[in-house]
């Protein structure tokens, strides 16, 4: 099977039953994407497929041979961090770091959904969506963090999204 991951082509021969998550971790050696539950219940395995965030444990790798797959390693590197990665460091949006790649990929995908105008459960209006801390928390709730860095994660995302403190308050009010 052939996969395009972080802009590079990989030829691997995984088991036909392999999830996208296991192919990334066990066959391509990209272990930045984490396995927390293997059941779509924690978000640790979140990657971006054709720009959309998905739980890579819930999908078979074989279904993604023509897709554009972006993982945490493709977002930025340790010496050249993506702004979302840098914001997580600055705001201490993690502790053990295990849920972190999933949180970061999810945050990047989530901001794009907001940009496209997709409403959420807490959106006041369906046709004009604006970001607030409540919106961030709601939209990020598929990513669990047992270390419970949630407030710091929201701060990091909010900074990257360009929300000023005044906007945040206005939107939350």
């Amino acid at each position: 099977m052939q996969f395009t991951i972080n802009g590079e082509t990989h030829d691997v021969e995984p088991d036909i039953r392999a999830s996208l998550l296991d192919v990334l971790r066990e066959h391509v050696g990209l272990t930045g994407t984490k396995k927390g539950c293997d059941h779509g219940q924690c978000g640790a395995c979140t990657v971006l497929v054709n720009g959309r965030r998905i739980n890579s444990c819930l999908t078979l790798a074989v279904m993604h041979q023509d897709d554009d797959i972006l993982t945490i390693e493709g977002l930025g590197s340790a010496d050249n961090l993506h702004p979302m990665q840098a914001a997580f460091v600055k705001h201490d949006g993690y502790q053990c770091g295990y849920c972190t790649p999933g949180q970061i990929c999810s945050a990047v995908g989530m901001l794009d959904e907001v940009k496209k105008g997709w409403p959420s459960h807490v959106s006041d209006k369906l046709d004009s969506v604006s970001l607030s801390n409540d919106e961030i928390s709601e939209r990020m709730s598929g990513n669990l963090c047992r270390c419970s860095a949630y407030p710091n994660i929201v701060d990091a995302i909010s900074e990257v999204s360009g929300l000023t403190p005044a906007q945040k308050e206005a939107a939350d009010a």
Partner: protein
Amino acid sequence: MADFKMDADHSGLALERGVQGVLGAGLDRSEGALKVSGVARYGYEHPLAGEVAYGYLITAPAAKGRITGFDTDTARGLPGVLDVIVDDPRIPRQAAAFVPAHAGNDEIDHWDQIVGVAVATSFEAARDAAKSVTMTIAPEQGHFDTMAGVGDASGPPKDSRLQDMAKGDIDAAMADAAVTIDQVYTTPNQVHAAMEPHASVAVWEGDTLTLHSSLQILHAAKGILAKSVGIEADKVRILSPYIGGGFGGKMLGPEAVLAAIAAQKVGRPVKIAMARSQLFHNVYRRTDTHQRIRLAADKDGKLTALAHDSVVSQGPDGGFMEPVALGSIALYDAPVRHFTHKIVTLDMVQAGAVRAPGEAVGMLALETAIDELAEALGRDPIDFRKLNEPPVDPMTGAPFSTRALVECLDKGAERFGWANRASQPGQVRDGEWLIGMGMAAAVRINLLVDSQARVTLSPDGRARIETDMTDIGTGTYTILGQIAAESLGLPMDCVDVILGDTDLPPGAGSGGSFGAASAGSSVALACEDIVATLAERMQADPKDMTLKDGHAIAGNRRVPLSELVGSEPLAALGKISQGSNAKTFSQAAHGAQFAEVAVNSVTGEVRVRRMLGVFEAGRILNAKLARSQAIGGMIWGIGYALMEEAVLDQRHGAFVNHDLGEYHIPSHADVPPLDVLFVEHIDRHANPIGVKGLGELSISGAGAAVTNAIYNACGVRVRDFPLTLDKILGGLPDM
């Protein structure tokens, strides 16, 4: 070697004279870039050369009985399967805590017990093989109901941290009191639910075993693993450079032992990660608790008696007891005191340590009861607590090392706006929401354990810290670097911290909130030796020498450290151990928790609107990371108050909600903005660096602040945790 036993206070460290200005600063995590870019490798992710095999654990669908036979033929016939191991006497039944877990799969003593492992060339094949194994079981009736077994309960084990204790006559005090509270509070089974499952990779080279895993206390795990596998400890090396959360659960997982056994049998490295559902039944849980609290007070609001008597459960052969009353023992003054524990043995996975054993659940009950008593007396809950502040440890009479509970209460009250709280419940409305404020005290005993670290200053002027201490997300990499940088006068980027390898000096490990104090002291002590040598070479008294930015300054001379070190690196071993100060002083960290909640008057749904934690935990080593520890604990408090419960099926002894979809932990949307304030008092009696434990303090009382706020919002007092909406709904006032 700088070896210090805490029989007296330390006379003053180089750390205290440091002018580098990094200690306490809110620096970013030093390993941060590695974690956010996905290149930090956790145990299971260690790259291996050559052929690797995958293991998947086989578990039994029964809670009690004997296995009379296995059928592994189908499994063995599947493509890619290398072995199906069900006949090795070393197969552990569950996770080990302090001693090896019981081994052998003939007897089943709890639901979903591990009985073997399937090994294959792929994860998918191993999983399929494990699920294809069938077994015949002669079942027996199990017992799963704690209170039904209370008649056969036993008392605290001899080596338990907490023994039963009593002072005065509790019955007489209750009979004589002006106001009393006598209530039972219950908390359910709870699990660690670290995001990273227990996972290990075992590699044999000849008779030497290397384990890449995710463990909290490596030197202890090494001994347990060696015994479990049947080899000498010096043939074992464990590496855990990154750990995806521990919370007390990662002492030695069963998958580590099985990976070692399997790797021995198939002749190649074996990787095993436990499935999420398997963690619920094969890693020790936090016991359910049934806590009777009796409080008596005179009409002026002085406590005259305090009793905290608990029933907890344990699995077969479990040596641990949840010390439920730990927080109650020295928190409030009262002449009559009574603390007991009963342990009921059930046919369940063992009970063990989960973040803040004792206080995490004991303080839910105690601090609710105190709120009830304050109300019965018509007193403000903060005033009531201040009125009953003990001058010395009320059980032993020992002085407190440091204690700033009152300061935390006062500062918190002001910052949170406590004066705006309506003293009567149900007074504040916001649309269909009822709004309330609550508070609780926080306390966590303070520990110090043996810990060693080596510090090496090299000719290039860089320092290297080495210890088998771990960083489970607590910030160890960063704070040990800060301690060394401050002591030696080095910029942070000139300090390398190497952790999580049993080939390094044995450190404290992570647990009981003793990590920062113990490992930090060992690093500071090692630096003492290096500073002494540098001073000698500067021909100065260490106290007259300043170390800053990689230079030593004394007597009008400023010399680069690289020059002072010369061609041979300077190395020193620091060692701390607990001493008589543990007895001379009553040691604990304290705090005050505040919460504002909204209770929906129609549905009973609870939303936490804001929280404040004010904590006194000795010296704060890194303001940013300390705050993160604090908010983490407070959020666990939200979980314990509102949602966490492993629901036990009384027919089968199985947790029905054994996954992260149904075992609810707080998620983003459950968590409001959190505010944290530290009241810093350096505790010189506790350890040389004056630090007290923080990670567990912050969970203590947090849940009770939430549930007391629920009462203040709507007047419903629920004593059966967690406070899910069904328990609140019936008591809501008419609309």
